[in-house]
C-alpha cells in the first residue's frame, strides 16, 4: 500500500467578519496517497476551494488557519515560512484555477510566464528552460507549441488557455496537482477533452491529483476516491464507486439525485415524462403535431444577424467592414404553451437569438413576427403590449437586479408598468414573492444581501410581474449550484403549467434541457443544425455535432 503523500489533520479556517466569525473549515481531516486522484465535491460555500487554498497556504485574507496541520511528506505546511512555502508552490504542489483567462497575466506571452516559473524554481539556463517549456506545451496536447509559446493569453481559445495553464502547473514536475474547477468555465466538448488530458497526464507522469468540482459525473469519471463537503465539514468519504452506488449521507444522496442525466430520465425529479414514469414517444409526437397546427406566437423567418467587429471611420469610408455572422438563416415557430430549448456552445449564437426574440436587437435581415405582426414595425400601444408579453430571465443573477434598489422597489416598478398604480401593490408584490417560494422578509433588502438562488427567483418574479405570455430564459441556472438548479427548473415548470407560459430556454447543458423541454434546437456557428422532439434528438442524434455534444457530457455514474 502506498503511503499518504499529503495528510490534512484537524484543519480549521476562520474568516473573521464584523459581528460573527465565519468558520469556512471545521476540523477537516483527509489524506491523499501517492498517485491517487482525490475528488473534493461540494456546492459553493462548502469550503472546497478554501481547503485547496490552505494546502497551498494561500487562504485569502482576512481568513486564516486557526487549527490543525497539513503534512506534505513529513513537513508541516502550516508552520512553514513564507519563503519556504514559495519554493514548494509550483515545484512540489501546483494548482490550476477555474478561470484560465484571469489566471494568466494578460500583458506577458504564455511563453514568458512559463519561462519565469521554470527559471525561478529550477534555476536553469534560458535555453534549457525554453526547451522544457515547449516540451510541457506539447505534453498538454497543444498542437503548435512554438506558436502558443509566443502568443498572449487572449489570443488563445478557452480550451487552449486551460491546457496552457495545466502545462504551466506541470512545468516544474510537481508531485501534487490541485485542480480547482478547471473545466467549469468551458464548453462540454472542451471539458471532455480536458478530462481526457488529465487521464493521460496521470498515466504518463506519476501525478497525484486533487480535483475540486461541483460536477458529480465529471468526478466519477476522473477520480478514484472522493470526499463530499458540506458547510465546511466532510460529510462523506470513500472510493467513488461505493459513494455513488450507496451514498450514506442524505446530502450526498440529494446531490446525486439532483443532477439531470441524459440516460436516466426516469430517475429524474424534473423529468417531463408522463404519469406512468416512462417517457412516451407517441404522446410527445402528438403534442408536437398539435403545436404545429396552432397559431405561432413568435415566428422567425430567415433571420440573419451580423455584428460589425471593426467600426471606424476608415473602414466605413472604404466599405470594408469586418462582420461576424452571429445568426444565419434562422427559422423557428413557437406556439403558445411551448417549451423550446436552444442548445449550443458559447459563440453558437443562442444568446443573440434571445436578444432578437425580445427585440433588444433587431435582425440584419429576415423577419420576426409576434402574433403575425413584424416586431420591427411595432409602434406605440402594440409595442407596449409586446414588451409586456415577452419577458426575460438572465444568467447572471447579480447583474440582473439593480444594486441600488430594494427587492420591493424592483417588483413594484414592474407591477406599476403592468397595472398602473394599484392600491394593493405591496400585497401583489408579496403574493408574487410567495409564489416564487421566497420569504417576505427579503422585500426591503438589497440584492447584494441575497443568495444566488434567491436573486434568481426575484429575477423570475420580476418577469412574472408583467404577466407575460413568453419568458426567454438565457442560461438561467448555469450560475447556480445543482440543488438550486433543480428547484429553479421546477419553478419554471410550475409557472408553465399554471399560466400556460411559453418558455424559450437557452442553455449549454444538454441533460438539463432534454428534461425540461419538449422541443429542442441545436445551434452551431449561428445555424440550426438539428431541431425536433427533444427525446428523439437525445436518443437518435442525426447531426455529428449533436452526437459530439451528447458524447461529451460526463456520464459519471453510468459507467459503473
Amino acid at each position, binding site marked *: 500500500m502506498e503511503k499518504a503523500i499529503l495528510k490534512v489533520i484537524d484543519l480549521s479556517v476562520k474568516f473573521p*467578519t*464584523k*459581528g460573527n466569525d465565519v468558520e469556512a473549515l471545521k476540523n477537516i481531516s483527509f489524506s491523499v496517497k501517492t498517485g491517487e486522484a482525490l475528488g473534493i465535491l461540494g456546492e459553493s460555500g462548502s469550503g472546497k476551494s478554501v481547503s485547496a487554498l490552505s494546502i497551498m497556504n494561500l487562504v485569502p485574507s482576512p481568513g486564516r488557519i486557526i487549527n490543525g496541520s497539513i503534512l506534505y511528506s513529513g513537513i508541516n505546511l502550516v508552520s512553514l515560512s513564507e519563503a519556504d512555502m514559495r519554493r514548494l508552490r509550483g515545484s512540489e504542489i501546483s494548482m490550476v484555477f477555474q478561470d484560465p483567462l484571469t489566471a494568466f497575466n494578460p500583458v506577458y506571452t504564455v511563453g514568458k510566464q512559463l519561462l519565469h516559473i521554470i527559471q525561478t524554481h529550477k534555476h536553469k539556463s534560458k535555453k534549457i528552460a525554453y526547451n522544457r517549456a515547449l516540451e510541457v506545451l506539447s505534453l498538454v496536447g497543444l498542437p503548435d507549441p512554438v506558436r502558443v509559446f509566443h502568443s498572449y493569453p487572449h489570443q488563445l481559445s478557452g480550451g487552449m488557455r486551460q491546457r496552457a495553464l495545466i502545462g504551466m502547473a506541470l512545468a516544474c514536475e510537481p508531485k501534487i496537482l490541485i485542480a480547482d474547477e478547471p473545466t467549469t468555465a468551458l464548453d462540454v466538448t472542451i471539458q471532455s477533452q480536458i478530462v481526457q488530458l488529465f487521464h493521460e497526464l496521470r498515466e504518463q507522469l506519476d501525478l497525484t491529483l486533487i480535483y475540486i468540482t461541483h460536477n458529480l459525473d465529471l468526478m466519477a469519471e476522473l477520480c478514484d476516491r472522493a470526499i463530499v463537503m458540506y458547510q465546511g465539514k466532510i460529510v462523506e468519504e470513500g472510493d467513488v464507486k461505493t459513494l455513488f452506488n450507496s451514498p450514506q449521507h442524505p446530502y450526498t444522496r440529494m446531490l446525486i439525485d439532483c443532477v439531470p442525466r441524459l440516460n436516466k430520465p426516469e430517475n429524474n425529479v424534473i423529468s417531463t415524462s408522463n404519469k406512468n414514469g416512462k417517457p412516451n414517444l407517441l404522446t410527445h409526437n402528438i403534442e408536437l403535431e398539435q403545436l404545429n397546427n396552432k397559431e405561432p406566437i413568435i415566428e422567425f423567418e430567415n433571420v440573419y444577424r451580423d455584428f460589425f467587429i471593426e*467600426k471606424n471611420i476608415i473602414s466605413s469610408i472604404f466599405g470594408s467592414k469586418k462582420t461576424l455572422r452571429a445568426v444565419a438563416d434562422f427559422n423557428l415557430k413557437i406556439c403558445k404553451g411551448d417549451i423550446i430549448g436552444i442548445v449550443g456552445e458559447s459563440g453558437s449564437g443562442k444568446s443573440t437569438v434571445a436578444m432578437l426574440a*425580445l427585440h*433588444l436587437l433587431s435582425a440584419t435581415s429576415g423577419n420576426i413576427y409576434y402574433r403575425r405582426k413584424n416586431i420591427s414595425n411595432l409602434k406605440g400601444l402594440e*409595442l*407596449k403590449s409586446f*414588451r*409586456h408579453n*415577452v*419577458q*426575460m430571465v*438572465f*444568467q*447572471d443573477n447579480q*447583474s*440582473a*437586479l*439593480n*444594486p*441600488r*434598489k430594494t427587492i420591493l422597489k424592483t417588483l413594484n*416598478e*414592474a407591477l406599476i*408598468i403592468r397595472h398602473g398604480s394599484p392600491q394593493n401593490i405591496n400585497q401583489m408584490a*408579496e403574493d408574487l414573492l410567495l409564489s416564487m417560494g421566497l420569504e*417576505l*422578509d427579503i*422585500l*426591503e*433588502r*438589497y440584492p*447584494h*444581501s*441575497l443568495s444566488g438562488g434567491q436573486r434568481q427567483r426575484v*429575477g423570475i418574479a*420580476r*418577469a412574472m410581474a*408583467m404577466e407575460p405570455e413568453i419568458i426567454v430564459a438565457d442560461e438561467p441556472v448555469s450560475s447556480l449550484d445543482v440543488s438550486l438548479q433543480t428547484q429553479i427548473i421546477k419553478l419554471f415548470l410550475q409557472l408553465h403549467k399554471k399560466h400556460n407560459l411559453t418558455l424559450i430556454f437557452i442553455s449549454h447543458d444538454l441533460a438539463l434541457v432534454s428534461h425540461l423541454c419538449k422541443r429542442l434546437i441545436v445551434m452551431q456557428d449561428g445555424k440550426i443544425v438539428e431541431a425536433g422532439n427533444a427525446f428523439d434528438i437525445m436518443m437518435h442524434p442525426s447531426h455529428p455535432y449533436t452526437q459530439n455534444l451528447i458524447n461529451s457530457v460526463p456520464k459519471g455514474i453510468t459507467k459503473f
Partner: protein
Amino acid sequence: MKKNKNYLISEKFTKRHIFLTDFLSALANTKTGLFGAFVVLLMFFLAIFAPWIAPYDPTLIDVPNRLQPPNLSHWMGTDLAGRDVLSRLMWGARPSLQVGVLAVLIGMPGGIVIGLIAGFYRGSLLETILMRATEIIAAVPLLIVAVAIVGILGVNPIDLGFFTITNEIKIVFVLGILYIPGLARVVFAVASTEAVSDYIRARKTQGVRDFSLIFGDVLPNCLSVVTVWATLLTAGGVLAEAGLSFVGLGVQPPDASWGVMLSEARKFIFSGEWWLLFFPGLAISITVIGFNLFGDALRDILDPRHYTGPRID
C-alpha cells in the same frame, strides 16, 4: 399577513438606521478618513461662523501692533498692517470654500448629464459628439483660462443693475465649466458599464423609456463615484482660488483670502516673520489633504465592492 406588514415597517425603519451607523463606523475605521472628515467639517464650520468666532475684524488696521509674532492676544500674530492673522485665516476660509463648492455645483449637472447620456448610448454618434466636445474643453489648461478670463473681464465687479458679477462668480463659472469634462468622463465610464448590464435589459423588456432608465436606474449607480469626485474637485477649487488670489486675480485686498495673505507675505520670506506665510500655507495644505483623504474614504465606503460592513441578512 398583518403581522408581516408590521415586521416590514419596523425593518424599513431600522434599515436607514443601520445604514447611517454603518457609514459612520466605516468612516471611524479608516483613521485617515476620519481625519479628512474632521478637517472638512472644521473648514465649513470656520467659513460659516467666521463673523461670530473671529476674535478681530479681519480688515481692522492696527498699525502700532504690526508684525507681532504669535502671542496670547494674537494667537497667530499680526501682519504688516497690524491685522489679526487668525481672524483673516477664518474669514479666508469663506472664499476658498465658496469657490470650491460652487464650482463643483455648477460643473456637476453638466458633467453628469453628458456622461450619463454618452455612456448610455455608447457607440452611437451622440456619444462621439458629446465626448469629443468634452475632450476639447479638457484640452484647455484650467488655471491659464481662469487667468485669461479674469484678465479680459477685469478684476472689478461688473454691475448689471439687478445683479453684480463679482470676481469670485467669474472664477466659479470658469472653474465649473472646466470641471465638466473630468466629471463627464468618470460618469461615462460607470454609466457605459451599467447601461449594458442585465437589469437595464430587464427594464427595457418592460418597455420603460430611455429617459427614465438613464435617470432612474443608471444615475443612482453613478452617484458614489460622483460624490467622491465632487469632494476631490472641491479641493482643486480651493487651490485654484488661492492661486488666483495670489496672483491678484481673485479676492481683492483688503478682503481676506488665503491666497491674498500668502501674496502679501511674500516680502517677508527671508526677514523672519514666518507666521505670515506659515499659517495660510498650512490652512491650504490641510484643507486640500483633508478633502482628498475624505474623498478616498468615501470611495471605499460607497463602493459596494469595497464594502466591509456586515451583510444585512
